[in-house]
């Protein structure tokens, strides 16, 4: 159903998808080529120009997989009073929302492999190779990241039990993940002191980590370590969202605003 909804306006969907990907690369290309030219270097912080372009090609797709399709849907159910039906249905509300979230993510997951496939076919010397192990690591990581993001985002959505309109809270989370996760600038460009702090947060594991899986070789030990940290953060988000849910549903009037 989610897939069908996403593709209802097919022309729109593809124009938006191609346009967003294209402009993200165009902007990154001109910005970084200007920096490389000014400094007159071939490599900067481990990035060649080609690697930088591939990074900015894949980052928005990773970001989209993580975000799925359900952003704003929990708070909407609360405002509009349509949460009522979930309280009556014999299904778990949270479970239902997570499945819907995945349904959207699966489509974007397929997109990233189309892009990677095209890159591998058309690039003269691809800067990374895909392997079954990479595919396996990436799939598991994106599954974990998708759940983590859902739980983090639901913290903001459940505030709707108390506040009238919480759209901006979700945007703050998106900004935070995008900037501190490395979607705007690769984290290797961040100062060392800030990385020590960032590594204590969930953000680097949500974007920089899956990008590392795709573009570099990640050892099994490192993979497990990162996934464990991500899982711990997910548990923290889940715990607080359960607290909010349990407290919030007693405030829910079911009439909508």
């Amino acid at each position, binding site marked *: 159903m989610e897939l069908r909804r996403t593709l209802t306006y097919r022309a*729109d969907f593809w124009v938006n998808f191609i346009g967003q990907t294209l*402009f*993200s690369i165009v*902007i990154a290309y001109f910005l970084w080529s200007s920096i490389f030219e000014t400094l007159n270097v071939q490599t900067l912080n481990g990035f060649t120009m080609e690697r930088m372009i591939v990074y900015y090609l894949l980052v928005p797709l990773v970001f989209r997989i993580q975000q799925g399709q359900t952003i704003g849907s929990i708070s909407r159910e609360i405002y509009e009073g349509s949460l009522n039906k979930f309280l009556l249905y014999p299904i778990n509300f949270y479970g239902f929302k997570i499945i819907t979230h995945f349904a959207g993510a699966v489509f974007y997951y397929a997109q990233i492999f189309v892009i990677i496939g095209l890159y591998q076919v058309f690039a003269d010397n691809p800067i990374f190779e895909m392997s079954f192990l990479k595919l396996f690591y990436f799939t598991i990581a994106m599954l974990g990241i998708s759940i983590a993001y859902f739980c983090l985002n639901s913290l903001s959505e459940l505030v709707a039990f108390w506040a009238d309109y919480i759209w901006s809270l979700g945007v703050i989370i998106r900004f935070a993940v995008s900037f501190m996760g490395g979607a705007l600038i690769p984290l290797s460009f961040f100062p060392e002191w800030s990385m020590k702090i960032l590594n204590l947060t969930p953000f680097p594991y949500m974007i920089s980590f899956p990008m590392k899986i795709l573009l570099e070789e990640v050892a099994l030990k490192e993979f497990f370590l990162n996934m464990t940290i991500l899982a711990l953060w997910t548990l923290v988000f889940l715990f607080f969202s359960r607290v909010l849910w349990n407290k919030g549903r007693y405030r829910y009037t079911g009439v909508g605003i």
Partner: protein
Amino acid sequence: MSRYLKLYAHFLRFSFSKAMEFRVDFFFRVVMDIFFYAVQFAFFHIIYLHTPILAGWDIEQMRVFIVSYIFIDALHMTVFSTNCWWLPIYINRGDLDYYLVKPVSTLFFLSLKDFAANSFLNLVIAGSLLVWVLTNYPGPLEPIKIFVYILLLLNGTFLFFLTNLIFLLAVFWTQSPRGYGDLFFSVSHVMERPDRIYKGIARKVFVFILPFALMASYPAKFLMEENQWHLLGVIFGVTTCFFLLVQVIWRLGLRNYSSASS
């Protein structure tokens, strides 16, 4: 003209009273925009850790550019963005009928009826940042140039809105609920980089076809660099063309409007 001013005064009054009903949202919006501004400064700060110059500007000059597009963003958010959000929805749902019968310009009404009073504080913050950066700018800034620069930022906001409208009015033909609003959001990031980084055909595109380079970068260049008066002709010429283009698209769109919801 006075009828339109009076109407806008009513829009303002209504928007402020509506915003006061959603106080938590008011607070969150302020936090969101402060975070957005902080990210913009941090982004360029990190870049300048690796290069002393970007597009011919040092970090002090880049700060003037950053506050220029932050101010445009804040002004657009306050005056136009809520209207831009609703416009394609009205067209898609067939709700435009209600506005077409009003005895005022429909495009004026739909473009300005929702003043985002909850973003107004952010506009004040963006304005304060602008004053702070200009006050601390180490080079000489002529008062007449500062005055023209402010006018150019207002013009940049208007041009940003016109470009946004072109992407949204596609809904008359696509019948989708958002038009190409998401695409516009991605393209609009062009404005957040100095125009000099764009070379060749991309530069021409971002000056004349998707004129994001004219919105913040040209005003900043006009303010900080010598002998840039010729930029005014390009800026106002392109803005006029875009204004006329929006009128044409709007009229063509109305001809295509079936009034029925999709």
